């Protein structure tokens, strides 16, 4: 039994970044939106103050204290109240495993410290790097980059003196993924010639890594993405969108019903029809066409980027490794950084399990290659435990449903932290919920891309941005009829079950299958779940510290990070601290999350960032660049339509 000063553990997932939080705290604990509005002392004891940054949370929302060896919750007259295990409470005693709901935060209380949770590991540990086709072999401490890279600025002559190849251009795109692609595409449309652009990355196709992540998370070419019709990485205008193109294709095949349905979808979505989304294969094919049109292969250079430095003549030098002891430099005046997600987030208890057992087959992450799971299940049946309830969990469930068509002896346990009777609330609106999944067509409310929410976030200060992101964020899935039917069928037929609780530890049983120990909500106590496989579908990690290249850059130039731990960028997506005379550096994608734009990690968000960056370059009169407006824009579109070089 806990004594009156014993620390407790709170556990929650941050609604804006998806990060797991597991602080060890001694009551009294104050929970609220503003640090300064919570008391410093309570009855002579120091208060641990926890900021929950959301508009649905009051400045001082609730207080947790020990009272006669019992933990007591007192709501501080908050506007939106505190829910305990789904019921509203103003003053009550709490138990091990209870779940507090405060705005978008769902916090599990762990009073007994028999929990393992992998909590002793440093949080940043609990990730696995995204597998690239060419792993980094040589240690980064090797002779490259050369010692003069230790200084703040490097000299061009010194680069040439190394005898490694040096290329000098105006524009350099780093990453060569989708973010680089849309930026380079826009540069080409604005008049920049391929000779003045270089792109460095590990794979020749801009969607290579994205495609791999899609395939791993069970989205093959014929399956649909979670993307709007007019989010077209191959077409900055977004017209014609994928729905129109698909309708046209079906029309030429004589499939008139399908034509009508696609057009109806984009007209009536999301209220009267299911939101249209394109098939992944079609998106890749469209990118291939555009890549050829703009001369991407000519601009692409293979290599792993080791370091980025300012030069003493107002540019940037990029040192990269080509493998087998070969190295090269790129020098450019304008740099665009889009290295994507550095890592896959892994639940700490699962990461621990893998480290302890060295078994990488039974506990897997949804973003890793894990087809062996479905093959084994199709062969011999079994039970799968899914953790996480986002879009990827939906896809996995669909894949398991398909596996069940081949072998009906497959059962699915879906483990969630707490029930979700209602969705997030923002102003007058509330997000819809079905079977404990929060529903939303895309990963952010739609107005984040170009509507009212976009301008609201852009105008907000750093703290307020995090608050808005928490209110709009959280794990959601798309309202797709097929998924709803699968969930319902699974529940009715009994092969799909949803359980709630907090995992205390995962251990192998005698047969080498993972046993999950769960603290159920309320007083129900601990239960054990047996499964043949566990699939972690909780997400990706975008923190700068996880990427060695970015971490080095941030440390070397002492760059500021934003409150989400990502690169701090201006509203133009510039890293102003990296300015070097006329030289400019921009960033895009997940590494800029927490800044002026919510949906940075999406096709349309990458295009938005590219537009902002190119606009700011045009204002600074960057060479060859003419902003794309009016007739000029229309003329470029005509070239796109006729598949002519820009």
């Amino acid at each position, binding site marked *: 039994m806990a004594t009156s000063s014993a620390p407790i553990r709170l556990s929650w997932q941050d609604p804006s970044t998806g990060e797991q939080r597991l602080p060890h705290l001694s009551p009294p604990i104050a929970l609220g939106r503003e640090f300064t509005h919570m008391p410093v002392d309570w009855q002579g004891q120091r208060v641990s103050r926890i900021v929950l940054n959301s508009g649905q949370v009051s400045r001082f929302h609730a207080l947790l204290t020990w009272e006669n060896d019992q933990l007591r919750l007192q709501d501080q007259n908050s506007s939106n109240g505190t829910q305990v295990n789904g019921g509203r409470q103003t003053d009550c005693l709490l138990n091990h495993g209870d779940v507090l709901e405060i705005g978008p935060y769902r916090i599990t209380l762990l009073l007994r410290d028999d929990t393992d949770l992998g909590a002793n590991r440093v949080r940043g540990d609990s990730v696995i790097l995204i597998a690239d086709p060419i792993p980094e072999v040589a240690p980064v401490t090797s002779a490259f980059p050369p010692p003069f890279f230790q200084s703040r600025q490097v000299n061009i002559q010194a680069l040439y003196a190394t005898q490694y190849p040096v290329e000098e251009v105006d524009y350099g795109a780093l990453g060569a993924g989708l973010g680089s692609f849309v930026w380079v595409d826009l540069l080409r449309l604005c008049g920049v010639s391929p000779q003045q652009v270089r792109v460095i990355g590990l794979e020749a196709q801009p969607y290579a890594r994205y495609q791999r992540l899609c395939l791993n998370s069970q989205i093959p070419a014929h399956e649909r993405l979670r993307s709007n019709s007019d989010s077209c990485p191959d077409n*900055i205008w977004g017209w014609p969108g994928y729905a129109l193109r698909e309708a046209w294709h079906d029309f030429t095949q004589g499939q008139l019903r399908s034509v009508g349905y696609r057009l109806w979808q984009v007209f009536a979505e999301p*209220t009267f029809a299911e939101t249209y989304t394109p098939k992944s294969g079609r998106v890749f094919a469209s990118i291939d066409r555009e890549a050829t049109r703009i001369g991407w292969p000519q601009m692409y250079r293979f290599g792993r980027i080791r370091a980025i430095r300012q030069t003493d003549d107002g540019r940037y030098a990029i040192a990269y490794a080509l493998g087998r002891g070969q190295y090269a430099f790129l020098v450019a005046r304008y740099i665009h950084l889009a290295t994507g997600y550095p890592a896959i987030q892994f639940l700490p208890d699962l990461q621990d399990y893998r480290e302890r057992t060295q078994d990488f087959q039974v506990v897997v992450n949804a973003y890793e290659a894990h087809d062996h799971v479905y093959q084994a299940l199709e062969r011999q049946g079994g039970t799968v435990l899914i953790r996480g309830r986002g879009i990827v969990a939906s896809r996995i469930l669909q894949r398991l449903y398909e596996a069940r068509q081949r072998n009906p002896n497959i059962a699915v346990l879906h483990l969630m932290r707490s029930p979700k009777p209602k969705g997030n609330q923002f102003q007058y609106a509330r997000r819809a919920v079905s079977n404990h999944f929060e529903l*939303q067509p895309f990963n952010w409310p739609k*107005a984040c*891309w170009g*509507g*009212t929410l976009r301008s609201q976030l852009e105008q907000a200060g750093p703290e307020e941005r995090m608050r808005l992101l928490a209110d709009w964020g959280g794990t959601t899935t798309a309202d797709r009829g097929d998924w709803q039917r699968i969930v319902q069928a699974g529940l009715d037929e009994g092969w799909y079950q949803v359980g709630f609780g907090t995992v205390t530890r995962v251990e192998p049983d005698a047969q080498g299958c993972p046993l999950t120990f769960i603290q159920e909500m309320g007083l129900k106590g601990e239960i054990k779940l047996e499964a043949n496989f566990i699939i972690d579908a909780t997400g990706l990690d975008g923190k700068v510290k996880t990427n060695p290249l970015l971490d080095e850059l941030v440390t070397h130039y002492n760059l500021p990070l934003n409150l989400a731990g990502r690169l701090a960028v201006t509203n133009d997506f510039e890293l102003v601290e990296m300015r070097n005379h006329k030289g400019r550096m921009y960033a895009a994608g997940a590494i800029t999350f927490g800044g002026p734009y919510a949906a940075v990690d999406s096709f349309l968000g990458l295009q*938005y960032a590219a537009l902002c960056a190119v606009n700011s370059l045009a204002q600074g009169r960057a060479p060859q660049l003419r902003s794309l407006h009016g007739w000029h824009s229309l003329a470029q579109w005509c070239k796109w339509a006729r598949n002519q070089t820009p």
Partner: protein
Amino acid sequence: MTPTLLGRWQTRILLFLTVGLLLTLPFGLGWIGPGGTAFFAILFYLLGLGLGWDVLYIYLQKFRWDQDWPAAYQWLAALWEGLVIVLLFEAMAISLPGVDAEAFQLGWFLLHYMVVWVGIFLASQSLMRLLFLHWRFRGGQWL
């Protein structure tokens, strides 16, 4: 495109004064229907009232979690905006500068309104994006 208030206003003004005016010409000049300046006047009343409706629509958007405005809603709004003009000049027979309620011809109005509306809708779905890259990222602001 997910509109903001400023975006709605800018888009409405631009499209009414270009596509709207262009499509009103054949009606005003009498190539289609009886002709007369009333068609132009009605276009301006539609525009003026529309700027007011936009304030209402933006308010309604706040009740949608995605704060969006599906294409289908644009059509419902168009029905409503047309209906108000019919109520004004036909049902309540109110004459306003430029429009004589006595001379208001419902059939020709409906045809004119339909042509203008479809023209504006199609332009907003395609041409606006091609001419103004930022338009869809700034809630319909093209300036």
